[in-house]
């Protein structure tokens, strides 16, 4: 079956699926490259979280703003960054998204409204409120979305951002990717309420919802609804998306602190499987899905090659881009 024969809805779902596979494959490649010593520093892989990024992005306008965390590869890609520029950044190449100045934790694609990945927990939540404020001031109808982890709900910036957004009725969505753990500590051990994000919404008088973060369709629908509300001037909302990470917290963390039974249960609740299931339900033949898988695999293979062959940054670039004039002079 040619994808042209699919209904619009189903074709879109297939496209979302393919995007998720592309992210998953890229994450897997990043992991392998890290183990091979080709990725320096650290990585925080989002394999398992794909449906949140892809589902939310599908519900947004092209000119909306997205703010992500150090675990942000999926958001950069969902907003249009290709596997090559992402992997090149991780591999310290001049062709990386940030010219190898940022690294895995700071993937940014400003041209498509993906305004950055921030590595200090919670710091970007007020920024997203500010971007939403700006949209309101400029009357553009844009909204801003901040993605963050369950652990971020206990930091002060979370509280300040949510209250400000609520008081100013800003068009901003706060989307928590609750993967049950901060780094190695279960979130339940350090959080006073059961749903770290959704159960806090009442403290700001805003809607607090939960969604299956591994179901791309559910995420897209929920975000679309909350986005419409925000765009209409009804203010911010807090969405908690349940998910799980397939890799450890970062680098080569084997995540031994997670009970085997829990891991197994969640691996069975995989966003790709769920989407594949939905495609099958809708009558999409297995070969069509496999073709999407293969396209993604091939794209990542080529991206890895290209990134490997890309040049290293010029050391002199270390002294550019501090100031808007492109330079770094702090004195005369």
């Amino acid at each position, binding site marked *: 079956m040619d994808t042209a024969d699919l209904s619009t809805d189903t074709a879109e779902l297939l496209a979302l699926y393919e995007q998720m596979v592309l992210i998953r494959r890229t994450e897997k490649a990043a992991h392998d490259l890290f183990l091979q010593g080709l990725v320096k520093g650290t990585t925080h892989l989002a394999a398992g979280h794909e449906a949140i990024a892809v589902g939310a992005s599908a519900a947004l306008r092209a000119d909306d703003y997205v703010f992500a965390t150090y675990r942000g590869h999926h958001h950069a890609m969902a907003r249009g960054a290709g596997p090559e520029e992402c992997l090149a950044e991780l591999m310290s190449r001049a062709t990386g998204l940030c010219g190898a100045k940022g690294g895995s934790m700071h993937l940014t694609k400003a041209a498509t409204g993906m305004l*950055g990945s921030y590595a200090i927990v919670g710091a970007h939540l007020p920024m997203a409120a500010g971007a939403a404020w700006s949209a309101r001031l400029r009357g553009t109808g844009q909204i801003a979305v901040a993605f963050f982890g369950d652990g971020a709900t206990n930091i002060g910036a979370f509280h300040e951002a949510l209250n400000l957004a609520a008081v100013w009725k800003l068009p901003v969505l706060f989307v928590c990717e609750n993967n049950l753990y901060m780094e190695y500590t279960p979130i339940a051990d350090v959080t006073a309420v059961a749903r770290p994000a959704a159960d806090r919404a009442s403290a700001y008088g805003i809607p607090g919802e939960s969604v299956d973060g591994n179901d791309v369709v559910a995420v897209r629908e929920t975000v679309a609804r909350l986005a419409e509300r925000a765009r209409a001037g009804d203010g911010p909302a807090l969405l908690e998306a349940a998910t799980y990470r397939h890799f450890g917290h970062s680098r080569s963390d084997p995540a031994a602190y997670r009970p085997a039974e829990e891991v197994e249960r969640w691996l069975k609740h995989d966003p790709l499987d769920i989407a594949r299931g939905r495609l099958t339900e809708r009558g999409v033949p297995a070969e069509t899905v496999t073709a999407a898988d293969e396209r993604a695999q091939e794209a990542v293979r080529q991206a890895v090659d290209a990134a490997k062959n890309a040049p290293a940054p010029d050391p002199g670039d270390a002294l550019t881009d501090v100031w808007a004039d492109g330079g770094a002079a702090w004195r005369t």
Partner: protein
Amino acid sequence: MADVITYREAVAEGIAREMRRDAAVVCLGEDIGAAGGVFKTTAGLIEEFGPERVWDTPISEQAIVGAAMGAAMTGMRPVAEIMFSDFLACCWDYLANEIPKVRYMTGGQVTVPLVVRTANGGGLGFGAQHSQATENWALTVPGLKIAAPATPADVVGMMAAAIRSDDPVVFFEHKGLLAAKGAPAPPDHVVELGRAAVVHEGADVTLVALAAMVPLALRAAALLAEEGVEAEVVDLRCLVPLDMRTVLASLARTSRLVTVEENPYQGGWGATVVSVVADEGFGLLDAPVRRVAGECVPLPFADALEERVIPTVDKVVAAVRDLTAY
């Protein structure tokens, strides 16, 4: 135009001029609207520009500066007020880790043209948590421009430059100068950031000062003149960009250097100035370099105690006398 205006009035005037010029300029902060700011440095703004351009915030310094950052990335030119510069500590992550770094770490993709204004400095008996001169905190972080004007006209001119700057600027307004009067700024007055001013000429010693230390250094210079010592006073105006060219040029004339800093000696900005001089200006020096700075203690409440720990005219005069005797 009035004959003289206060430094306090100059702040509001400086902001208002830019708000008139550019619709992208918006203000946010605690009690800056109807109340006109606790120091009355935003008086009249909400009346002229309305609540869509002058926003009262909760007591949420992180949200204030974080939101300013998000707005700056997306087409606005926010001017955020942090009421006392001590409270910069409550949003330090934004000043230290986010705002000055985001342009660099995104490879130049994101630009944050914003101003964080704050009331700085002591001498008013506000105690340990409301009196600090914290400009040296900002100096520890590459990527922030740092402005600290000493006169009403400079307030207006540097505010214009700060708001028009595509780089983030921390703008220190000195509490001890708010009531000080000076010539008003001419129309369209812009003082480029990073240009120090020689505000008093002299051949015997260079006094490098900032903000409230400038009038203090000038008073010291006047006293020294009576003793026949001609002190040159350099108003740095900015710490970043730091105008070392002007400092070194003055030193070439005087061969002697005293910094006059309100921040504590340890980690104070004068140390950076001195270290450049001890390297590039070593050959110019005829005597040791002296720093008149805050004592390395928290700021005490009582006048008699506060006077003991912050720079005074007497301390500057004594330091210069010492040096000229060298």
